[in-house]
């Protein structure tokens, strides 16, 4: 056991680092990379596109993609190494992740050759940004309960409905949308998948304000939006299969920690906040709690080493790769709650005068979202139980029933 690169990996890492050093500025110690949170900012988008183009020109964009679409056919471990290295530099937020991480791979599996050639290269270069139009107000965890309709009209389809939780809708050229095309079919059998031009008439985008005051997501309303049939991915009414491909890739795309305070920040707080005239860190009760947090946080970190090891050995990582968000999000919330306890009465300040500039207050207000976005804790437990442990699926009362007859609320 060791934590070293193989000679091939080390060579690849050196190559990546050399290019990054020549083309970007390293982060200062303790500096966080720029996050995606926040409102639409054309300048940020422009900078992100510039950086993406630079990478693409040098062959460092979407490195695992096949060469024919602009990638370099890199291995999964090389992708890990590349992102480790890139994370050490000041780079704009990655606004391409949804397209490149989830939608591109879906097009590669289910798209026609023409679609691949049309959409993948500009996606890779960042010339065209993509968003995902999946969830609806009444179809979150139960995504297949979606009600946005697409009705055939000659060579076109007409889309009506509402999507929600769409990141980057404001600056996206294309959206990937799942729609209901046959309400008489069983739930999963009447769904079709389209690429929609986000500048089409009839699309309205409204940012959603989150409880922490930020707006990372949008609602997107569709009124008689026209999509040509050539923008369809996969067969009519076979869109659920495509959506599953996208969702399988989501697990990988989201997973990570994504900024915010960590154990070392908690330790620093315990060292600086005074309890009874001494640093809180000297309190035996505080120490017990800190130790539990440490073991959990490290358990997660070492688990990611195990995943990387599998990739490095050319294996498919085991199910341990699915626990990241389920452990990490509540851990963040619990650490924040404990940090606020440490701060005493000052925990009520959402103010720069709060300890650490309200770092933990913001984490406490933001963490509930981590437990919901990209699969709620409950859905993740179901996924682990069913896919990893092979336990029986939930009993489905919506199977074998035409979608339009599935109950959507209490009977009046």
């Amino acid at each position, binding site marked *: 056991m060791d934590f070293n690169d193989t000679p091939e990996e080390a060579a690849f890492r050196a190559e990546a680092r050399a290019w990054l050093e020549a083309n970007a500025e390293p982060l200062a110690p303790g500096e966080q990379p720029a996050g995606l949170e926040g409102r639409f900012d054309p300048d940020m988008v422009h900078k992100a596109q510039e950086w993406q183009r630079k990478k693409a020109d040098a062959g460092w964009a979407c490195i695992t993609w096949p060469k024919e679409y602009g990638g370099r056919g890199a291995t999964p471990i090389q992708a890990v190494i590349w992102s480790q290295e890139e994370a050490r530099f000041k780079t704009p937020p990655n606004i391409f992740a949804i397209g490149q991480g989830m939608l591109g791979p879906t097009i590669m599996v289910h798209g026609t050759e023409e679609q691949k050639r049309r959409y993948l290269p500009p996606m890779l270069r960042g010339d065209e940004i993509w968003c995902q139009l999946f*969830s609806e*107000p009444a179809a*979150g*965890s*139960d995504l297949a*309960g979606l009600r946005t309709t697409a009705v055939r009209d000659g060579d076109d389809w007409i889309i009506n409905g509402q999507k*929600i*939780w769409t990141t980057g809708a404001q600056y996206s050229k294309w959206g990937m949308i799942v729609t209901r095309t046959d309400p008489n079919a069983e739930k999963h059998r009447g769904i079709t998948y389209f690429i929609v031009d986000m500048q089409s008439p009839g699309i309205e985008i409204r940012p*959603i*304000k*989150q*409880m922490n*005051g930020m707006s990372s997501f949008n609602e997107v309303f569709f009124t008689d939006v026209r999509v040509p049939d050539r923008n369809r991915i996969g067969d009519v009414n076979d869109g659920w299969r495509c959506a599953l491909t996208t969702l399988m890739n989501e697990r990988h795309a989201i997973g990570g920690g994504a900024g915010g305070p960590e154990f070392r920040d908690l330790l620093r707080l315990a060292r600086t*906040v*005074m*309890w*009874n*005239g001494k640093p*809180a860190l000297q309190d035996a*009760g*505080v120490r017990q709690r800190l130790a539990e947090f440490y073991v959990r946080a490290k358990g997660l970190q070492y688990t990611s080493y195990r995943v990387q090891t599998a990739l490095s050995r050319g294996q498919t990582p085991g199910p341990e790769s699915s626990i990241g968000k389920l452990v990490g999000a509540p851990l963040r*919330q619990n650490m924040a*709650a404990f940090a*606020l*306890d*440490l*701060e*005493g*009465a*000052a*925990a*009520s*300040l*959402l*103010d720069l*005068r*709060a*300890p650490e500039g309200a770092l933990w*207050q913001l984490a*406490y*207000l933001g963490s*509930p*979202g981590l*437990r*919901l*976005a990209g699969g*709620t*804790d*409950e859905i993740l*437990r179901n996924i682990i139980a069913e896919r990893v442990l092979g336990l029986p699926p*939930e009993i*489905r*009362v*919506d199977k074998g*029933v035409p979608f339009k007859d*599935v*109950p*959507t*609320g*209490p009977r009046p």
Partner: protein
Amino acid sequence: MNFDFSDDQKLLRENVRSFLAKEAPLAVCRQVLETATAYATSLWQAVATQGWLGTAIPENYGGAGFGRLELAVIAEELGRVLAPIPFSSSVYLASEALLVAGTDEQKRRYLPPLSRGEWIGTVAHFEGPGDPGNRPVKTVVRSGKLTGVKMPVTDGDVADFALVTAKSGRDLGLAIVDLHAREVQRERLDSIDPSRSLASLRFERVPIEWLGGRPCGSDTVQHIFNRAAVLYAFEQLGGAQRAFEITREYTLNRYAFGRPIASFQALKHRLADWYVELELTRSNCYYGAWALSNEAPELAVAACGARVAATNTFELASKEMIQMHGGMGFTWEHDAHLFYRRARYLAAVLGPAPVWRERLITCLERREQAS
């Protein structure tokens, strides 16, 4: 055995609840939260008109002359609606402190305007981050003048006067300070719950008088906090209970996979566990109310127990409320974050739960040594 509110008190609860249902829907809380207002003045006025501010103030000081059980009933109801008013500061802290330790002259001066809502009072104790438990208070009184900085002070931006913990030599006391005095600088601070306000108060040789005429001593200060803790616990309980009711209702009406999400056993069991926590907390709160209203020697232990249970349970409730509402629960538009914020505000306002747990064991030790 008579360990419940009386029929009269239950009737009071019904009246308070229906009054607040009209006067204080959650939109009132949200409005204070979303605007730069410090509190809901019209609700404050309405509450004053109802006479609730003087619930436990004797009639000869302008109050209604009821007891703490009636006050506990009102506190729970105010907690249910997340009332965005300085009731807790002015009543549980300032008025109660005056009743416990004020001179007759002080009571006559302060209690009538407090009970009419013309004056707002508060207690200023904390001096920045950390546990104030046994840490020496740095604010001092010399030659009748007070100097120091208190931060955060609940409702310190709107209070007319504050009872400020301060040292005079070795003695700890509560100094009554007119917050409109020139020597007081106050600054509103951003609160994790903008529907409830916070300030920092800087005192530069401001003239004071001592509550009770001289430093009342740290035992009395702690006694005042213990009493307030019981009433705060009822507010917390009310908030936790309301969060539960809204969430239960939601899980019955929100359908996924063709059925109400309340039918999924993972949620069912967590709702059952949540209900259990509410009942245990309610019982601890009742015991606190009994001890408070009877001036029982058990008050210290009972207050710690109520405070710890209610703080835990409101935190649990506000977390579960968001989680069970799914993505909608994380939006600004949804009311869940009002509960999440209030839970944290109330957890901090008398010092965090670990401090009260520590204090609970200290009280148990003292009790055993005494017996």
